[in-house]
């Protein structure tokens, strides 16, 4: 028997408004989040990820479908009867209470004894490295500290599932990167299932066990970070996660586990088949810029533009009038790029680096 999912959505549809102005925020979404998993809902704004989170928390009711927590349907339960806690995007700390009172709030509402509550509060403060800050007001804390208090306040209730709604988006870059590691650590230490909502692909890739990429109210792809990045199933996923070259290619034939593809008469290479493709078929390929190799002295393309981005240099390589390829090459020790605008280069695409997309 399969393990019971921590959270499960079954055919969940959510429509806001009615009539001509109705917006379909979620369209028959089905997904199961495993226990003790760091699960990320990733997508652009308006894709329905926050709506799904709010449905799980109980702030909204699904128009159709079911939400299950530990296998039990919860549509009829108000938020305060669900063993789920939320870390809000803007933290939503109670401004009229101290940090300690904020953290104790959930326990107090559930009638936990005073002694036990103050013990948990101390434990939580030390967990988020804010020992000694219990008497402060949220307004007296920095953004990063408020973020930690919000985490502590949610974790203090030891929920089955912790919902995080873009919790890092209000922090500056350095702090955000620091908090990524801490969040992941916290999740491992507490063993609580995290459902994390973000539009930041880097956040998703670095922290998650599994990612659901969402767009227009549907889940486009569900898988581990590596799977999502290396084997995107469709154009949306390939485009949204990382940089991608999209090429229209024609299939020459099969060769072992690959298909032999030809692009604009000047490029040919082996691509991974995502489905059976007959010779002569037109397919769309996705290739990551860093997987393409440039060779000096070739004739396949001309460097049209170079952009220095620190670790790498991005080259725009012109192959034909309407065909340009973005290539990312790691910089040499002295930091200088290998090629200059106008250089002729050869282009090599390793077998399997290009992926045929399903649609």
């Amino acid at each position, binding site marked *: 028997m399969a393990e019971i999912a921590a959270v499960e959505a079954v055919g969940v549809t959510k429509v806001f408004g009615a009539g001509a102005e109705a917006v379909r925020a979620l369209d028959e979404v089905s997904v199961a989040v495993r226990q003790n998993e760091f699960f990320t809902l990733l997508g652009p704004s308006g894709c329905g990820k926050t709506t799904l989170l709010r449905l799980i*928390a*109980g*702030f909204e009711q699904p128009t159709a479908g079911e939400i299950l927590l530990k296998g039990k349907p919860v549509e009829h339960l*108000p*938020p*305060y*009867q669900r063993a*789920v*806690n*939320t870390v*809000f995007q*803007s933290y*939503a*700390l*109670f*401004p*009229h209470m*101290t940090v300690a009172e904020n953290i104790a*709030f*959930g326990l107090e*509402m*559930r009638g936990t004894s005073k002694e036990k509550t103050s013990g948990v509060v101390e434990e939580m403060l030390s967990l988020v490295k804010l020992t000694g800050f219990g008497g402060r*007001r949220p307004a007296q804390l920095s953004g990063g500290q408020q973020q930690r208090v919000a985490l502590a*306040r*949610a974790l203090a*209730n030891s929920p089955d599932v912790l919902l995080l709604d873009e919790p890092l988006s209000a922090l500056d870059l350095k702090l955000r990167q620091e908090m990524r590691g801490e969040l992941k650590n916290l999740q491992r230490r507490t063993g609580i299932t995290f459902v994390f909502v973000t539009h930041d692909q880097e956040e998703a890739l670095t922290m998650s066990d599994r990612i659901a990429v969402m767009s227009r109210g549907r889940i486009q792809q569900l898988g581990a970070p590596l799977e999502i990045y290396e084997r995107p199933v469709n154009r949306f996923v390939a485009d949204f996660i990382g940089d991608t070259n999209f090429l229209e290619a024609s299939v020459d034939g099969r060769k072992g586990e690959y298909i032999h593809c030809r692009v604009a008469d000047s490029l040919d290479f082996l691509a991974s088949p995502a489905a059976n493709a007959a010779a002569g078929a037109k397919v769309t390929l996705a290739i990551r810029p860093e997987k393409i190799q440039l060779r000096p002295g070739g004739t396949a393309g001309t460097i049209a533009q170079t952009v220095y981005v620190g670790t790498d240099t991005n080259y725009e390589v012109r192959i034909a009038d309407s065909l340009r390829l973005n290539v990312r090459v790691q910089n040499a020790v002295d930091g200088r790029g290998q090629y200059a605008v106008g250089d002729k280069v050869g282009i090599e695409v390793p077998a399997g680096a290009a992926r045929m997309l399903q649609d």
Partner: protein
Amino acid sequence: MAAAAEATPTNQRVAEAQALMRRRWLRARWGLSAPAVLIILLFGILPLMIMVVYSFLEAGEYGGVNWKLSTDAYVSFLFQRDIFDGTLTFSPDYLIIFLRSIIFALATTVICLLLGFPTAYFMATRPPSQRTLWVFLITIPFWSNLLVRTIAVMITIRDEGLINDFLLWLGLIDKPIVMLYTNFAIMLGLLYSFLPFMVLPLYASIEKMDFRLVEAGFDLYATRGRVLRRIIIPLAKPGIIAGCLLVFIPAIGAYVTPLILGGGKHLIIGDLIALQFGSSRNWPLGSAQALILMVGVLIALLFYVRTTTGKAQALHG
């Protein structure tokens, strides 16, 4: 070295320029606030001073005052002087009127709060485009004169008024319910007059509230009642305090409403003070009563503000 030598005169000039700016700014500040200060002095402080002075004078025979120092006004507030031998006996008559006024004002404040809070909450939770309309609706009563509105209430609740006529027509009652010239009528009039003063500040503070905090409360296992008590009410506190002050202070001094709807049967402070300047022709007593009311309200306010904000200030300090 050269740079430092040059810097000194520059700094001096900067300092001079700053001093000039400061002087200009001060002048501008006084210039801009002068009209308001003048109005407050002329129509607020000066009449108050006249009242203080009058309250310590002797009453003139046909109104006005005799310029002779006297504390009679304050003494007669609590005591009655025997006409023949001049002995003083304690008389609670005025105190009772004061007490009745305080009860009316408190009841008005409490009922306004109970009615106004849900109203303000409802308004603040409408979509932003509709809120302006609701605020507009709340302010409609201000468009007509208080006296006109009070008389409208009178017409509505009198024995041959709209309510009684309607109930008689329905056959629910066979003789009119007496509502006019009762405490009920006074309460109704006060509530009707002052409810908007409660709703508007409440609305302002609830509208500013971050409703994610309410969601956070629900998320942290607080039921609806607890979210109201622990989150919404504390956050709406500035509005509650402002609303209560705006209702209580005018309610305790209300004059027109109790006079018209109470029919003069139930004296409250406003009527009492008006009486001293009118038919009683005892200006010093009227002044004294008005001052006692004012000082009483001030003390109550100070106490109230101390107890409600002391805790927060202690934490911030």
